[in-house]
């Protein structure tokens, strides 16, 4: 993953700051950086969102396609994740490096989001055993400045909120043959319930404390971080230790506690923002990529 080299003196400075709950950019340990969220940014997807967090920039597009359900779960649709680590984001992504990270990130996203309880996968089923909607979630990393996971999860949640899947009906003719009919009205579409979709909070252990939304400099001071995916109700859907270091059990408990607290607090303003954005409808000012 993207990283920076910093000197020992800088490390000490950052660690002392974190100890006193004052970070280099003036934040407290549990504060996020300024965040910009925009939905419906790519017109030829079924749902999209762009999130900017500090200098980290992530674009998510969702496309829905009709496919055959998986044989072991015939009455559910499913999600597929693909993370593209653009070489523009950081030179490290050139060649194989980006590819490996992409697989790693998409595997983790799959674990976080593809739970029955976070998204109603049954609503994606059109005809059990034969047709279901598959949501292809494409994540494009435009710029990396730390905390990729949190930015990606927020962008995915926003894009899922924005997703509109055309309504289809299954017609049966006399001979028992089935046909799929697409609704004529383009505004007649299926929306996803995103109430229970988790957000990822990555906590970086710096010294004896941990920080939320670490920058690359802060990450360079830390040996281990903990990824916690939290639903709005406070249930944990995924935990993963990242990095080369180890953690003692007590700090794991503290970090998951903080993760839950921060994650819960993140959901309400996010949903409010998304709803407000949508209520503006056509009047919404498009910012796009020039922001």
């Amino acid at each position, binding site marked *: 993953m993207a990283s920076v*080299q910093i000197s020992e003196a800088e490390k000490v400075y950052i660690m002392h700051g974190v100890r006193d709950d004052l970070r280099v950019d003036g934040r407290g340990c549990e504060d996020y950086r300024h965040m910009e969220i925009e939905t419906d940014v790519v017109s030829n997807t079924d749902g999209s969102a762009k999130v900017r967090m500090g200098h980290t920039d992530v674009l998510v597009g969702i496309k829905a396609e009709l496919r055959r359900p998986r*044989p*072991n*779960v015939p009455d559910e649709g499913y999600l597929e994740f693909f993370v593209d680590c653009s070489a523009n984001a950081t030179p490290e992504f050139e060649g194989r490096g980006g590819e*490996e990270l992409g*697989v*790693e990130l*998409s*595997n983790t996203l799959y*674990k*976080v989001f593809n*739970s*029955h*309880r*976070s998204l109603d996968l049954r609503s994606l089923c059109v005809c059990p055993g034969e047709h279901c909607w598959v949501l292809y979630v494409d994540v494009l990393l435009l710029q990396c400045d730390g905390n990729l996971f949190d930015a990606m999860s927020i962008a995915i949640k926003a894009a899922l909120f924005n997703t509109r899947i055309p309504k289809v009906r299954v017609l049966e003719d006399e001979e028992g043959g089935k046909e799929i009919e697409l609704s004529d009205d383009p505004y007649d579409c299926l929306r996803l319930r995103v109430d229970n979709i988790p957000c990822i909070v990555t906590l970086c252990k710096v010294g004896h404390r941990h920080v939320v939304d670490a920058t690359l400099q802060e990450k360079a001071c830390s*040996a*281990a971080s*903990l990824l916690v995916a939290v*639903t709005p109700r*406070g*249930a*944990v*859907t*995924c*935990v*993963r*230790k*990242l*990095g*080369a*270091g*180890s*953690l*003692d*059990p007590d700090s*794991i*408990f503290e970090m*998951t506690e903080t993760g*839950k607290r921060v994650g819960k607090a993140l959901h309400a303003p996010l949903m409010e923002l998304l709803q407000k954005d949508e209520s503006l409808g056509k009047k919404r000012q498009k910012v796009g990529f020039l922001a």
Partner: protein
Amino acid sequence: MPVDTKRVRGPEESQSPVLFLPPSTQSPAGRSGQGARGNADIRPVFTRCGLVSQAKGSSYLEAGNTKIICSVYGPREIERKDETDMKSGRLVCDFRLAPFSCRKRGAWIQGSEERDLSLALLESMQPGVCLHRYPRSQIEVNVMVLENDGSILAHAVTCASMALADAGIEMYDLVLGCSLRQDGDACLVDPDVLEEKGSWQSGYEENQGRVTLALLPNLGQVSGLQADGEMREDALPAAVRTCIDGCHKMYPVVQQAILRAVKKKAPPPEK
């Protein structure tokens, strides 16, 4: 799909006979079939060091029907020289599932699940190895699952740390793994493959999840943690504690096996 010209190929498509079973007969889960294993019990573990003659160190571990073999090569000269930090050594982990190890046949080409497991294994092992003692060199850990009957990542961690010890690689501590399956209020330690999956219906029930933890037992540090599913707030810390206990239960067995291997390599002087 790229065509694999380096292997003997079969038909384009084939399906496991399991898919053609009537749904009612498909694997009822439950710990009762296993006999008298309590929810907090780990399966009996059989383990040996030094079975692969060609490797610097190796180990074999059997827990219930789960069978894992691991070999360690190195330290040898680093292969990819573009790494910026040459002051410390590099640990390379390769996690493979044999094609016949699961109920459904796996492919020879490493899939995303195996890559994910390789990474998880690496992150769990790294904190235990004194990599600063091996500058400019790499240590390779190859894990092969011969039969998957659940908790493979946890047992692979234990198996890998035994192989590293057998290879004489300097370590801060052993690394032990343990996993559990949270199924409602029940908490099944060291689940087998049926318990791991549960019925797919149970995905809709409360408090479902899987946790795998790696522990450095003497330092009391957790070197790897993976949890997925959807667990209640209080269930996760409890699960972490249970896994730590589970790791400690493995410790004497692992110590015995290493001791045995050391005695075999360097027999104590006869009095």
